[in-house]
């Protein structure tokens, strides 16, 4: 029946809400819904054409009711499509805010630290290419906004700062960082007492972990 497919899409969206990882893009389902909308549109056209050019909605209640139902089905399908894509777009945006970069798509698997970073979104399996493009596009938009607020660091931590310095543990080798107190070499499993502002980015990228 009309709208059944869209319900499946909504169910998938619901599932997505409770998942940490963005699931595969439902290409077939989306295409099927688009097809359904076009079929409905064709039916509307046929109905109107049958009545000829002098058709007025008020004259033939039965036909106008049929058209009305078809229109509502189309709009409902569109709403479901929009909701699904909006949800996915928002998830992609969240990824960008958390420091995820589109360029790292595909390279994630071969890095040896991948298992240690289970809470990091594992990426790119089943995304649509258009979604990767949105990720990149939004990345640029956000980068420009961030560039206007360099002193503030928009993507910085949203937790109120309590201490200037924090204890951190290194989860995977991150090379050397330059701090005002000298050079620190971040090797796996080592612990440091460092300035939070110096390592914020690395925490977000999952290289190091804050200890409480």
């Amino acid at each position, binding site marked *: 029946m009309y709208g059944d497919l869209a319900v499946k899409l909504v169910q998938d969206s619901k599932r997505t809400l409770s998942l940490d990882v963005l699931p595969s893009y439902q290409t077939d389902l*989306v295409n099927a*819904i*688009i097809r359904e*909308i*076009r079929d409905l*549109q064709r039916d509307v056209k046929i109905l109107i054409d049958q009545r000829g050019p002098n058709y007025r909605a008020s004259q033939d209640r039965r036909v106008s009711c049929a058209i009305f139902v078809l*229109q*509502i089905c*189309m*709009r409902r399908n*569109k*709403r479901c*499509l*929009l909701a699904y*894509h909006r949800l996915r*777009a*928002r998830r992609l*945006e969240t990824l960008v805010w958390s420091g995820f970069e589109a360029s790292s798509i595909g390279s994630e698997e071969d890095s040896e630290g991948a298992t240690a970073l289970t809470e990091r979104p594992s990426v790119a399996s089943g995304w*649509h290419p*258009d*979604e990767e*493009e*949105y990720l990149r*596009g*939004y990345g640029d*938009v956000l980068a*420009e*906004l961030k560039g*206007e*607020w360099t*002193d*503030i*660091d*928009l993507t*910085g*931590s*949203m937790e*109120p*700062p309590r201490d*200037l310095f924090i204890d951190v543990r290194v989860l995977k080798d991150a090379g050397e960082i330059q701090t*005002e107190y000298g050079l620190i070499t971040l090797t796996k499993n080592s612990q440091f007492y460092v300035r*939070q*502002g110096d390592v914020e980015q690395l925490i977000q990228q999952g290289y190091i972990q804050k200890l409480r």
Partner: protein
Amino acid sequence: MGDERDLEIDDLINNLDKEYHSAHPATNGSYLTIQKSRELNSLIQLWTHERTCPDILPYAHELLDTILDRVRGQIEVIEEYTTSADSSGNAKLKVLFVETELERVKFLVRGYLRARIHKIDNYYMHILNNPDVQRKLSQSELRYTKRRANQLKRYYNLRFLSSLPQLLQRLDDTAGGLQMVDEPDLDEVVFIRVLRDAPGEVDLGNDDKIELRKGNIYVLPYRVIRQYVDDGDVQLV
């Protein structure tokens, strides 16, 4: 031991103050301190307001500019201290004070901006369709809204929108009695604290009226007290 340490820190702060005055004899010290803490308080209030208010509030150009100037100033101070040869304990402690304070201010500004961006993301179509709302945004925010909207539209179009019948391709149609554009829900209830006795009673509809008394806290729909928030009679908490 603890007392001793507290004392030391108090002394140091006093010393800092004195040094500041001797270094800047032209400025009226006490006035400056009051002025500074007033701005910080305004920032805190601004941040709370933006986070609790369902609507997008006008961007606080003046306050933000002042605060940002000060942030830049403090960053310079820190850089000066760290590059100078003076590495005695006192100097380091001073830098620590400045840095801690700086991080806090940065956190507030960040929270403020992020709260705004969150609303902008949700209501971008509403913003783009209403010049009145656009005036509440800063240039940078408006630019961000437009660029993001373009990206989003492109994504929707590529995925499905352009394949739909012409009639259904709009992102902001209202046909069929359904409003597609998300708008801030002005009827969302907010907590308010009354700062001054407001003239008259607030009309809650349904013949319900309420008098706002100074110092009291109320929970009301944002719509009915909106004007009072703008006038500064009440404060969102």
